[in-house]
């Protein structure tokens, strides 16, 4: 089974990368984009035996730094 963990910066945490992307979008001549926040998505292929609690543990102890990041876990239906 495929599991996706979406990692994003917490609100209020400055995102210089997002700001640079925003600037580059404006460089494309496209207007109307209010804000850009960059994050990452980590995709895991897991056995059905892997529990939600274990996914939470992976996400909170390793995949994110909870001082600055939030995460959302999504089990992808095959």
């Amino acid at each position, binding site marked *: 089974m495929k599991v996706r963990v979406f990692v994003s910066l917490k609100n209020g945490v400055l995102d210089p990368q997002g700001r640079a992307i925003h600037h580059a979008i404006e460089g494309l001549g496209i207007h109307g984009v209010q804000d850009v926040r960059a994050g990452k998505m980590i995709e895991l292929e897991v056995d059905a035996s892997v529990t939600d609690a274990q996914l939470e543990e992976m996400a909170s102890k*390793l995949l994110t730094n909870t*001082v*600055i990041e939030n995460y959302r876990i999504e089990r992808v239906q095959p």
Partner: protein
Amino acid sequence: MSFRSAVITFPGSNCDRDMADALEKVSGTAPHRVWHGDAALPDGLDFIALPGGFSYGDYLRSGAMAARSPIMQAVIAAANRGVPVLGVCNGFQVLTEAGLLPGALMRNAGIRFVCREVKLKVENAQSLFTAGYSARQEIVIPVAHHDGNYFADAETLDRLEGEGRVAFRYAEQVNGSARDIAGVLNAAGNVLGMMPHPERVIEPAQGGTDGRALFESAVRGLVAA
């Protein structure tokens, strides 16, 4: 009495030799060199250093993988027993990722890698690592990092300042760090993390000597204790 220290090398560390050289020149005794995959530290250590570099290629987050490597369990246990631990640059990132220091080090606000000498102010000149400086002394130490932008929530920052745990502050704009924090101590005062590289300025041939007092403070404090 000899000074027993250890320098930990992770895959991708690149300041470990400079760190070992600084410790040997200041203390007179060569440090143990410890590999990240080792399960245990040498017995009776007086000092542990986590060097700069790009451990694990900065994969996931700077310092994230190294903080979970086998030797770090032993480093965390030693730190909790009171053994002095210094983390410089990537070593600082590892210490925050390992939970030994609060906060996190994020991408520099200016996005670019910053590699130059910077002016620092010594904020706490009474710690094990900084007793050889005077309070408010201005020193020049080089930085070389991409992720040095110190972040912590306002409550944590207030606590760090209130408890005298800000060891060094930038005296100029460098990377967007909250309250210009360049180095922080843990609550017990035996763990210091800092982005600037004191091991790169310990003798005149390196172009400066302002980092030497940090190592001298630790060696003197421990040998006297």
